[in-house]
């Protein structure tokens, strides 16, 4: 579904990604891992077209998307929960959710249309948002903002969601709920690319793991292989 | 050698139209003489004062120091005039006003290096005051912007008008909307209104005066409010409104007829008094230089030559007072539509005959 091959990117003269290749199949969940500053968020930004790539190719659902403006990439069916939440501070919770909402497209390739995420469904998933629906984005607590960012991405009814540290700052209970929710989304056929520091939880939902080290893919393989090799964590994720 | 003349005018900002008339009037005279004045090839250096006194000062200094001009002509506004007069006089350069005539330069502050080819500021206002008095108006409302010229204007009007002043309204400089003031006027029910509202303010006022239905009921006496710079904008709205001036396009002298015709032919619009005054300023220099045979170094001689006013003014009889401001006739003028559809001010009656200003007495020059 999403395929990066040999992607290079950076900020100004400062190259951060040196040939990243990875793929997320339809309905698959992939965990992108790595220590702070290894280029995980940069990869996400490059996929979304928020950062120009200096080399390589990216395609989504078979079509090349590299070089397209972000809105066209999003419209192709990618939903983003960005690092740092970035909820709209001057919009109410409800407005945050509906401002960029889109109905699900009729499934391509003869697949049935996935059930629509609606306001009601989001409120059911994250009841806290319903309680705060008239609050402005800026008046939410950190965790509430995080929930809102997730809800907002789902409201675009994507075929692939990218979650960049989506559980940062969430209380343990809520975090658990989010994981459960991701599992359900996966079962409903949604593809997921997830970045998170909770490796154990990731291992429960991810089909495959990709580890970044200094802008390069240092290891990738399926989750069983990841679990089987505790040395991986020591090498790439701890000091 | 060449005659160099600096022309300071306001050519940008909302009041640029006045400056344009002034400049065009002067240039027309030079052009008609084949680019010469007094037989000498004349180079006219036009500068825009931007209606900023400090800009005007630096540009005036540049005219003297860099361009070494023999005369400076122009200046639409009094505050600019006040600012440039001193540095010019210090450098012994003659300044010939084609419009502004502040009292500071007419009275105690008069200077051998300052001539006015126009009028003293109060005079046009006095015309209306005298007219209102003669006409027997009992109660008038006065209105002017809240700045020095505005206050001087109302003072000028009251010099000859002795009736009741129902209200004295000061408006904001650059004011757009006069509905509040017009409502006050309507409520006061005066015999006439006198106003001084130059530039765009005047356009707004005239339009709104007409729209408020006052134009047909309360006579509108004004100075620098309806003239050929604003008539293209107000058009019919100004029809029948009065103003005071020492000149109008239809003034019946052969010189004036020729001037207006030539001006309209050259520039395609009807000249206003600024153009006529600037034209006269050019004729004045023309005559003086001719009389001197081109020798401009003897400042006393130049001054004497200028003072003779040995030229045919488009205003008819014209001479200088002791303060080097003019003595001339003043008229009540009225807005009319010409057969060709254009609007102009036309002379309604003569209010003053060969009139000098009141400040001349305070001027130490004899």
């Amino acid at each position, binding site marked *: 579904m999403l395929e990066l091959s040999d992607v290079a990117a950076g900020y100004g003269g400062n190259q951060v990604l040196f040939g990243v290749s990875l793929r997320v199949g339809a309905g698959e969940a992939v965990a992108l891992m790595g220590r702070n500053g290894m280029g995980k968020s940069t990869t996400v930004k490059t996929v979304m077209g928020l950062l120009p790539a200096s080399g390589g190719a990216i395609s989504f659902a078979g079509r090349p998307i590299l070089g397209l403006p972000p809105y066209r990439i999003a419209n192709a069916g990618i939903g983003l929960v960005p690092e740092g939440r970035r909820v709209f501070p001057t919009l109410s919770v409800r407005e945050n959710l509906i401002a960029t909402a889109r109905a699900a497209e009729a499934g391509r390739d003869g697949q049935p249309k996935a059930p629509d995420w609606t306001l009601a469904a989001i409120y059911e998933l994250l009841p806290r948002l319903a309680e705060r629906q008239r609050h402005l984005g800026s008046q939410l607590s950190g965790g509430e903002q995080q929930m809102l960012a997730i809800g907002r991405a789902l409201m675009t009814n994507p075929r692939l969601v990218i979650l960049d540290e989506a559980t940062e700052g969430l209380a*343990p209970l809520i975090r658990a709920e989010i994981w459960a929710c991701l599992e359900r989304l996966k079962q409903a056929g949604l593809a997921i690319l997830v970045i998170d520091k909770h490796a154990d939880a990731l291992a429960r939902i991810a089909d495959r793991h990709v580890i970044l080290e200094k802008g390069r893919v240092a290891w990738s393989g399926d989750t069983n292989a990841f679990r089987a090799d505790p040395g991986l964590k020591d090498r790439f994720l701890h000091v | 050698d060449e005659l160099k003349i600096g022309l300071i005018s306001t050519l940008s900002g909302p009041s640029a139209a006045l400056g344009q008339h002034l400049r065009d009037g002067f240039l027309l005279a030079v052009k008609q003489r084949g680019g010469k004045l007094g037989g000498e090839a004349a180079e006219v250096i036009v500068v825009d004062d931007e209606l900023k006194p400090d800009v005007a000062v630096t540009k005036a200094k540049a005219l003297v120091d860099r361009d070494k001009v023999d005369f400076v002509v122009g200046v639409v506004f009094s505050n600019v005039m006040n600012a440039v007069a001193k540095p010019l006089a210090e450098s012994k350069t003659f300044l010939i006003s084609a419009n502004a005539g502040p009292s500071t330069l007419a009275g105690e502050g008069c200077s051998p290096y300052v001539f006015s080819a126009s009028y003293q500021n109060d005079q046009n206002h006095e015309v209306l005051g005298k007219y209102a008095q003669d006409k027997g108006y009992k109660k008038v409302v006065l209105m002017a912007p809240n700045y020095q010229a505005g206050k001087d204007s109302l003072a000028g009007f009251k010099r000859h008008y002795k009736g009741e002043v129902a209200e004295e309204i000061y408006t904001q400089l650059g004011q757009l909307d006069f509905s509040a003031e017009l409502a006050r006027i309507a409520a006061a029910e005066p015999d006439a209104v006198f106003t001084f509202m130059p530039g765009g303010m005047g356009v707004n006022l005239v339009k709104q005066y007409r729209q408020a239905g006052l134009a047909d009921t309360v006579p509108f006496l004004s100075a620098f409010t309806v003239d050929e710079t604003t008539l293209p904008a107000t058009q019919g709205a100004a029809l029948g409104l009065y103003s005071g001036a020492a000149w109008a396009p239809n003034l019946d002298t052969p010189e004036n007829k020729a001037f207006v015709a030539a001006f309209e032919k050259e520039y395609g619009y009807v000249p206003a008094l600024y153009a006529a005054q600037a034209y006269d300023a050019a004729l004045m220099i023309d005559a003086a230089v001719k009389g001197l045979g081109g020798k401009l170094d003897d400042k006393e001689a130049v001054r004497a030559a200028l003072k003779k006013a040995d030229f045919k003014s488009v205003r008819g009889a014209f001479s200088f007072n002791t303060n080097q401001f003019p003595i001339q006739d003043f008229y009540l003028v009225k807005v009319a539509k010409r057969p060709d559809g254009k609007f102009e001010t036309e002379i309604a009656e003569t209010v003053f005959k060969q009139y000098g200003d009141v400040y001349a007495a305070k001027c130490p020059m004899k």
Partner: protein
Amino acid sequence: MSLASCAAPPVLQLQGLVKHYGRLRVSDDVWLDVAPGEIHALIGPNGAGKTTLIGQIAGEILSDSGRILLGGVDVTGERPHRRVHRGLARSFQITRLIGGFSALENVALCAQALDGSSFRFLAPVRRDAGLNATAIAALVETGLAERADIPAGRLSHGEKRQLELAMALVASPKLMVLDEPMAGLGKAETQAMIAVLRRLAGQAAILLVEHDMHAVFALADRISVLVEGRIIASGPPDAIRADTAVRAAYLGEEA
């Protein structure tokens, strides 16, 4: 309760704090003590009012009622910068750094606040050896010394958090209030941060707001649980871990 808290007066006392936003009660009669040298964790669900409470302690948010005492002195109405001079330092949930300043300058700025008057107009501050030494010491303590000259805006997320901490501790505060210092840190960085905080614990009391339970249980001497603006439980980690109400409201299966 730890022995230390019995011996000396608390560095921070909150007495019945109340704060409303419209009809929403964000702090609802909060009572809380932090003893000298103690690491006191404040946990609770999202939106419970933890950050708001920190805002009240720091003086950015005015309480509707209740009292705040720092080192036994009532500071309820005092303005934020005055409280800093009484030994309070805080970090922000979302990092707030002077992006154009180097890491060193950021820390030196904080050091400067407590080093006499800053209405000094002549001596170049960059060459102020005293300030720089103090700042370097704080950077060393948080493991950022090598990055001292990098503009703060260009640091990685984890480094920014470390810098926040350095800025808080450079003032040698009596009490540090830290809002989710582990947020956004990887496992490794979290471990490092835990180590730093443990070292600091001797020097200053810490009020720690954090959702990383691993860190909380590794560090805290005492834990208070805030739910909907109320402290529902307060006590040593083991007691909190066992508390069913806390599990239901916040912890869930974790820890």
